[in-house]
């Protein structure tokens, strides 16, 4: 190993990031809660909570269930609405986070996606727009747009027409052919793909014999889903040219490296933030140690390297 300092930085579309670590949407709020644990400026960036046009309470409770090495949520996109995010959350965020943030936008119609993306595109602190076409919790919501190539392409085209910032489409893993959907998004102009949102899962309380989640089913996430996420990142990275944010089950610096070797330029960490609020900090600290051991000089070198072997 050369004696140069290790390089953790990656370039995600036009965004130069200090490191590839990005807390995932819905597990990091709008940043407020985590700044009490550590200085979140150490992050590459973070994705804020999925935001819709109108404020939403989301689904009835209970909307959280525990699983073997994972969890199910059916929060159902609780958020204060795009206007409150712009007028209240972002001004506050600016006071403690000094990097571009990634905006996660959800919608129930093409018009809603367009409306929200056009609005958030004007916010200076937003570096990337992540369009969630995959949330399985909302009836007639995200799910429908993420399960066919045509619908995903339609959202992509519509959003791209009203935005100037890089647009990532976040896809659902609950499909037979992820590559077809990702390619459709790429052809429709997406600047990147985020893989994956939650798997559709369920638990039953054997005491009450009823579903644990009031809404019956919900989104399954956490370390358990890592092999599915990694597979999809690898498949899409082979088929598409645009960069990928890998997401799903990441719990360690080694997982981050594995995701990057599979083809991810940045790596999102979701559920683990809820179990261990320091996880992203710990991963960022551990990354150089693992790189040293593995003889990796620069993280950007290993992106998609498995394809070449």
């Amino acid at each position: 190993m050369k004696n140069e300092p290790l390089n953790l930085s990656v370039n995600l579309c036009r965004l130069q990031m200090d490191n590839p670590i990005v807390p995932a949407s819905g597990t990091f709020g709008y940043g407020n809660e985590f700044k009490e644990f550590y200085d979140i400026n150490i992050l590459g960036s973070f994705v804020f909570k999925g935001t819709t046009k109108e404020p939403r309470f989301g689904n009835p409770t209970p909307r959280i269930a525990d699983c073997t090495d994972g969890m199910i949520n059916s929060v159902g996109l609780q958020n204060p609405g795009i206007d409150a995010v712009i007028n209240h959350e972002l001004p506050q965020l600016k006071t403690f986070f000094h990097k571009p943030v990634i905006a996660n936008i959800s919608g129930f119609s093409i018009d809603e996606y367009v409306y929200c993306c056009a609005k958030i595109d004007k916010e200076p602190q937003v570096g990337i727009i992540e369009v969630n076409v995959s949330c399985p919790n909302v009836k007639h919501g995200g799910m429908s747009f993420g399960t066919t190539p045509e619908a995903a392409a339609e959202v992509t085209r519509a959003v791209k027409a009203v935005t100037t910032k890089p647009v990532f489409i976040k896809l659902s893993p609950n499909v037979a052919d992820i590559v077809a959907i990702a390619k459709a998004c790429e052809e429709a102009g997406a600047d990147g793909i985020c893989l994956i949102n939650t798997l559709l899962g369920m638990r039953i309380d054997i005491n009450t014999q009823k579903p644990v989640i009031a809404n019956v089913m919900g989104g399954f996430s956490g370390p358990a889903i890592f092999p599915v996420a990694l597979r999809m990142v690898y498949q899409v990275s082979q088929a598409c040219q645009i960069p990928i944010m890998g997401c799903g089950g990441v719990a360690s610096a080694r997982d981050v490296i594995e995701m990057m070797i599979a083809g991810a330029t940045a790596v999102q960490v979701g559920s683990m933030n809820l179990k261990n609020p320091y996880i992203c900090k710990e991963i960022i600290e551990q990354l150089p140690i693992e790189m040293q051991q593995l003889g990796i000089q620069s993280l950007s070198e290993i992106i998609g390297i498995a394809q070449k072997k």
Partner: protein
Amino acid sequence: MYKKGLYTITSNMPLTETIYKMVLQGDTSYISASGQFVEIELPNKFLRRPFSVCDYDDNSITLIYKVVGEGTQLMSQLKIGTTLDLLTGLGNGFDINIDTKQPLLIGGGVGIPPLYNLAKQLIKKGLQTTVALGFNCAEELFFVKEFKEIGCKVVVATIDGSVGTKGYVTDAINQNGINCDYFFACGPLPMLKALCNHFTIEGQISMEERMGCGFGACMGCSIQTKNGAKRVCKEGTVFLKSELDL
């Protein structure tokens, strides 16, 4: 402010057939009010489990928990000396800087624990503090003596009438002619609803919801209040009665 830290079990013993008391040693400096809770990481469980702080001092935390599922089952088997990872300082806790002379504390089942340190604080302020506790039956009674020992007046209700007033905790309050000008409550939802109907006075109510994180990040625990959606773990767990819509 929150704190994640390691805590060592110094005691873990049953109070009743299903209810256990656990004492943990470690940093308590982030616990700022009675009625706050901790989130415990358990081996082979993904999500942490939330428990109210029953009592705490400079370097120990007392929890009281009921075995209801795999996580609490596992807790009941942990040995003295075991180290656990806890988040502490969670939840707003009870506000004791209020105008009251005769507070009434009302607890049902495992809603009772967070009232214990609260009672201590109120007594320390010199207030004449009454505690009304509801249980299913005599076998499930716990902490009645402890509340008495710190100087509370204690009334008890049991569903089967085996101890105290037969019926609900509201029945015990009625039957004992308890006077109060403010109340604090924690317990099962039907009990809390009954209290809201029963009392015209203001009170503070500690709520429960199934939690993902316990510190406001996941929106898993939200409830609708008169002032909009609130996260039980963050804006609560303690809400004013006037704010709730039970």
